[in-house]
């Protein structure tokens, strides 16, 4: 299970680094979050007497949902404003 999590995290991070579209980046972030959720669950399974890890995973899912909602909203606004959802092309603040 930890291997799966590591695999997912790696895929997520590669997506974040490689994909240019903001939505894909958000997806990559989701993947990484979920990989960490897997880790929480897995470590709780191995070591925990209490179910802290599970609860943490739940929190993370909720936060991830919120984050996805906010992130997507921002991407939507950005897309509307700049006609693109690729962050690299939005260089207004670059000196």
């Amino acid at each position, binding site marked *: 299970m930890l291997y799966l999590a590591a695999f997912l995290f790696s895929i997520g991070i590669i997506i*974040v*680094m*490689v994909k*240019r579209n903001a939505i894909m*980046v958000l997806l990559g972030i989701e993947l990484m979050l979920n990989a960490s959720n897997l880790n929480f669950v897995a470590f709780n399974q191995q070591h925990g007497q209490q179910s802290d890890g599970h609860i943490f995973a739940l929190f993370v899912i909720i936060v991830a949902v919120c984050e996805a909602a906010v992130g997507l909203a921002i991407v939507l606004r950005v897309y509307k404003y700049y006609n693109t959802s690729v*962050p*690299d092309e939005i*260089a207004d603040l670059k000196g």
Partner: protein
Amino acid sequence: MEKKLFDALVFLTLLAPLVSFFTLCCLPRNYIKIILSASIFLMLISTLSALVLLFNFWNGAIIPIHLNWFSIGTNSFTADLALSNRSLVMLALVAFISLLVHVFSIGYMGGDRDLKRYFAMLGFFTFCMQGIVLSDNLLLLFMFWELVGFSSYLLIGHRTIRPEAGRAAKKAFLLNRIGDAGFMVGLMMIWAIYETFSLTQILSTSTVHPWQTAASLCIFCGVIGKSAQFPLFTWLPDAMEGPTPVSALIHAATMVAAGVYLLVRLFHIFTEDALLVVAVTGMITTLIGAMAALSQHDIKKILAYSTISQLGLMVLAIGMGILDAALLHLFTHAFFKACLFLSAGLVTHSLHKAQKGQQHFDVQDIRNMGGLRKKMPTAFIAFLLSGASLAGIPFFSGFLSKEAILIALYMHNNILSWLMLVVIVSVSFLTVLYTFRMIWFIFFGEGRVIKPLKIEEPSWIMRLPVLILAFCSLWFLVSRNPFDFKGWMLTNENHHSDLLWITFISILWIVAAVLVSWYAFRKNPFKTHHILRKSFYIDEGLTAFFGTVTRISSRTTAFIDRSWIDKTIHGLVYAQVVVAHFTGWIDHVFVDGTVNGVARLAGLGGKITRSFQGGNIQLYIFWALFAIIIFIIWTLN
């Protein structure tokens, strides 16, 4: 009272010509009548006071006049004036002849553009000459000595339009200056020996200093220059470029005689060896002068060489210690030589006038003349009388003065004096020859080139002074007895005048010379040898030598200046510029390079660090990840 009168007369004699100079300088140049009358009047005053001095104070006790000039430290330079019998005679002589020449010049120089300058300089010359005679201070004497050279320069170069006049004037002054440089060295030695220039003090010192011979010879250098002695005599013939009255006054009667006067004045500081040099110089000069005079064609040049010869004779006599006779000869020579020049002036003046509008020829060349005896009787008489005096014919003053020298020499009775005696006798033979050569050529025979001309005698204002001078060449100027030179001037017991057989022989000798000249020159043999005519090429030799030396050395120094010193300076400056360029290059490449390098390095660093923040979020993440991985690896290790 007497002293005051005496002083006044002395100053009148001395300063009246100077007043004449200044007055003429201030007058405008076209007030000719005022210029002439002022200058004649002042000269007359000077002459009269000189004559009064001569007659009243002859053999009298004369008190010197003390004047302070300037002082340095403890040494004072005085401007004392001192008079003796000798200087009284000289004063009167200079003033008198100068007056006559002034009068003569009125006629001779009439119509000249620069009449004012001419008369002013004549006055100035007279003043300076009287200054030489009077001064009792060697430095003052030297001042006047140089100043007569200056006035001689201006008077020789009076006709500025003639380039030859400029050349002759320059030559006269330069050769005099060479002699004077020697005189100057003499002055330095005198100063080093005696610490004073006062002649009275110098002459009263009896100790002989080791430098004395050198000092006296150096002073003799001045005499060589001024009195036209060998080898510097060559300026005198050239000086004949000046107007004839000037030649009569300066280059025959007075200035050139100043050297002889100086020798007499300073005789006491001359040592035996120095006197030998003086005598030998005089001997050479008198011989060369007489021989050269015999070979000239220009009437004034003949007279100039004759002057050189006679001056040599006087110098020779002084070298042998015969002072009074030499001075007597100076005295008589002044009159007859001035008269010869002035009558030559009469002739050339008339010829020049007659020549106008006719064909042009050299009015001074005796080959062109002839038969002037009838056309110009005054000039003939004057020339004959003074010529006879020059030749030393009895009843004339020249005979007596020469006799005095001869007998004094005879009394010496040693090898040197016999040698000198032979020289003088042969020179007097030559003198007779050239004098009568002139007389035959100019006044006898048939007129040659001048025959078609209508010749008139000049006005009385010119003839009168000549006649007065001619009159003064007779014997009574010296003594009452025409065969005894002991008169008012020569009273010294040392002079024996009772050697009648010498007088007799010399008369015979002179008659023989006259006969020879009659035989030799009656028939116009014009040919003369070029060596003699050019007076042994001494002039050419000296000019070539000194000219070359000066030219080469001045060119060398100019070359050194341009090439060495300036090139060195330029080289230094160039070297500096090169060094500057080099340091500039170093500055540019190294110093600036280092600074720029540092800046570029910083820039590079900046660029590198900036490249991390390209605005590419994914790159940031990559680097962050990279850093985290490194951190993790590091912490794990």
